[in-house]
């Protein structure tokens, strides 16, 4: 099932793929079968991820990564559900789902490939494109101010907020791993250069730094606003959506209870 990788040479996605493959290996080494690690992806350059991963995947339509992840997790809480989404995918078409998934603290991990541009459709502006930037559809410069995705995740109620950089694979892999382990809505913004339409390699290499996680929500507001701060930015604990919903029902919820007792993943039953 090996597919030829079809990203532009030099694309930030290579680093993200490498980092996630390490996560799969790490989970497997802990006894988690690959079949339990499920990933969803949306539309955009990131959407090719499923083709390159030997795990159960669902390549869905534009903006709809999170509803699918939520449906999968509710159907089988034993699965470790993560999703890949682009800035256009999650924050243009998918914004309602992004805010609501954070709000309900659904127990999934979302990895946002943020390259600040629509790559696959050849260079139009997205929700995160900097103001003034000339793109194919903003020839006079982007008239809008960009959205800070980590800030939206924080104020919407996400309980794990991190930022990684496609050029720092080992840090990114650790963040992804921790995000999957986290109980609740985990969000990892990945600073991803688009070599063709928004080459930020040099800028990020010079400017990103590793921050210490914020101790309080107010501190976190400040920290996530700094778009080049990487690492775990804020983490808190709340009952997850699945625990809340499934505990009130007479339906299987084994894994929720098990995870509540212990942070560690158990090997497959």
């Amino acid at each position: 099932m090996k597919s030829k990788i079809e990203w532009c040479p030099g694309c930030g996605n290579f680093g993200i793929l490498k980092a996630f493959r390490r996560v799969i290996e790490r989970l497997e080494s802990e006894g988690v079968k690959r079949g339990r690690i499920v990933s969803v992806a949306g539309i955009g350059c990131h959407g090719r991820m499923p083709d390159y991963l030997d795990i159960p995947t669902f390549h869905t339509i534009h903006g709809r990564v999170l509803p699918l992840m939520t449906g999968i997790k509710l159907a089988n809480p034993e699965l470790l559900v993560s999703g890949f989404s682009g800035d256009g995918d999650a924050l243009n078409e998918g914004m309602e789902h992004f805010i609501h998934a954070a709000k309900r603290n659904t127990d999934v991990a979302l990895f946002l490939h943020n390259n600040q541009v629509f790559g696959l459709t050849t260079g139009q502006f997205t929700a995160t494109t900097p103001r003034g930037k000339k793109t194919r559809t903003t020839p006079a410069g982007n008239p809008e101010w960009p959205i800070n995705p980590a800030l939206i995740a924080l104020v919407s109620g996400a309980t794990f907020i991190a930022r990684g950089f496609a050029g720092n694979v080992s840090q990114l892999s650790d963040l992804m791993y921790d995000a999957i382990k986290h109980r609740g809505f985990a969000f990892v913004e990945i600073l991803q250069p688009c070599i063709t339409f928004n080459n930020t390699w040099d800028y990020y290499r010079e400017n990103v730094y590793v921050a210490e996680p914020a101790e309080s929500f107010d501190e976190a507001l400040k920290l996530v606003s700094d778009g080049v701060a990487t690492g775990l930015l804020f983490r808190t604990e709340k009952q997850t959506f699945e625990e809340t919903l499934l505990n009130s029902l007479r339906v299987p919820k084994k894994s929720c209870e098990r995870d509540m007792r212990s942070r560690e993943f158990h090997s497959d039953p």
Partner: protein
Amino acid sequence: MDLNVCIVGAAGDGVKEAGELAAELFAHFGYSVFVYQEYQSIIRGGHNASIVRMSDREINSHRKYFDLMICLEDYAYELYRPYLRGDLIYDTKFKCGGIGIPMTEIIKEEQEPNIFRNAASLGALAAYLDIEFDILERIFSDRFGARAKDDITIAKAAYEYYRSRYDPKMRLEKIGRRKKLVSGAVAIAEGLISAGLTHFYAYPMTPASPILHYLIKKREIVAYQPESEIAAVGMAIGSAYAGKRSATGTSGGGFALMAESISLAGMAEIPLLVIEAQRTSPSTGMATYHGQEDLYFAMHPAHGEFPMAVACPYSVEEAFYLSAELMNIAWKYQIPAILLTDKNLVESYKTAEIERTNLIEEIEIVKSSEGEYMRYEVTESGISKYAVPPAIVKANSNEHDEFGITTDDASVRTQMHEKRMLKENLLREDIRDRAWKFFLKGKDTIVTWGSTFGPVYEVAEELGYRVAVPRYLRPFIKPGLAHAVVVEQNYTGQLAKLLEMHGVEVKRVNKWDGRPFTPDELRELLG
């Protein structure tokens, strides 16, 4: 015996509940009952009507003219008066001729809020029909348990008031065992549960909401209201991918939002069940009124070619069985399936025998995580074996190869698209014998669909027509008809046009005022 009772008042007067309880009362005596709920998109005020019809023969509709009207507001009285052909029971707080009951005074004496006048109206109804009060008391207790005390006191006061001043107008005799009363919404929900539903996601939209309200109370079902219809259908697809029988329900506007995801389910071959409960359209239309305008939309809801099933129940009982049947079809063929219904069916109540039972047709599901799984294996039938995680199963909205890997290879595309499309032919043969239902004998045939069957059947029986009703609209099976009278609730004659396309000569009988046909109206149009 055939009695058509209309209870009218403002929203907030408890008219809907009074109608349901009156229906329970008639069902207790073994009659067949049908309740049509007419209400506006207003929470308080306006005018609501609950039309409760009972008969000693099987009925599936209300009648246009009322044998008895129970009226709680004078302006509502003015609106519904043209249809009154019998007695009037009214609250003496306003003046009009008839049987006056001081409902407002009674509730004031008991220090209860205005809504309790609905209990008073039921007390008066019981006295009018010469029913022993104990029976009404039991109806209240069955419904409200210990909370029924106040209703009973008020109903009793109205009952005694009636008996002290008026004579009963008829005596209701028990003609059989107590019948159960079911709404179309409950029939649909129970049908889905019988076919293995475990996950239901829906965003509120009239008239589909009662299905969500019912399922959300079931502790063995994961039912949830997410942020939008788009989220609801996405979650249903996610749960089906993970191996659980799921569904979503909405009306036309919400269904429009789901279109893109229905196409996704078609490409990814995910079993998806969507309930589309039609109301008056286009756009917001008249949100709480009836219509049958979405036939083509439901048949072709989304971009691209993919196999699909669309089925339409014509009665409350049928809603139960067809929902289950359609869920099984969605899973057997791994396709989107649309249950196309309408306001008059979903929100109406009827005496019907519906027993939850196991109607699941199991399919083989691969769950082994050994090796790489060919989820989209090309087979002779077009059906590949379903697999769910922990199997390494790759679902894909892009065109894909047998493993689910994205491709735009011309030959793979040709083969894959053909594989999917083959399933519709298979489905066509599967449903061929149950695609139509024929009733009665007659020189001419009336064709109708959905809840319009109720009034049509009744009149056809009287006028000597045969009746044909499609259960499946897609795949559409041509009925063996040369000509037909087509009765439906839209302007253009959507089913009529479909039949014309299949060479049937049609005569159209249409209505699009938001009110369901009554037998009285059809008698004039078809007689």
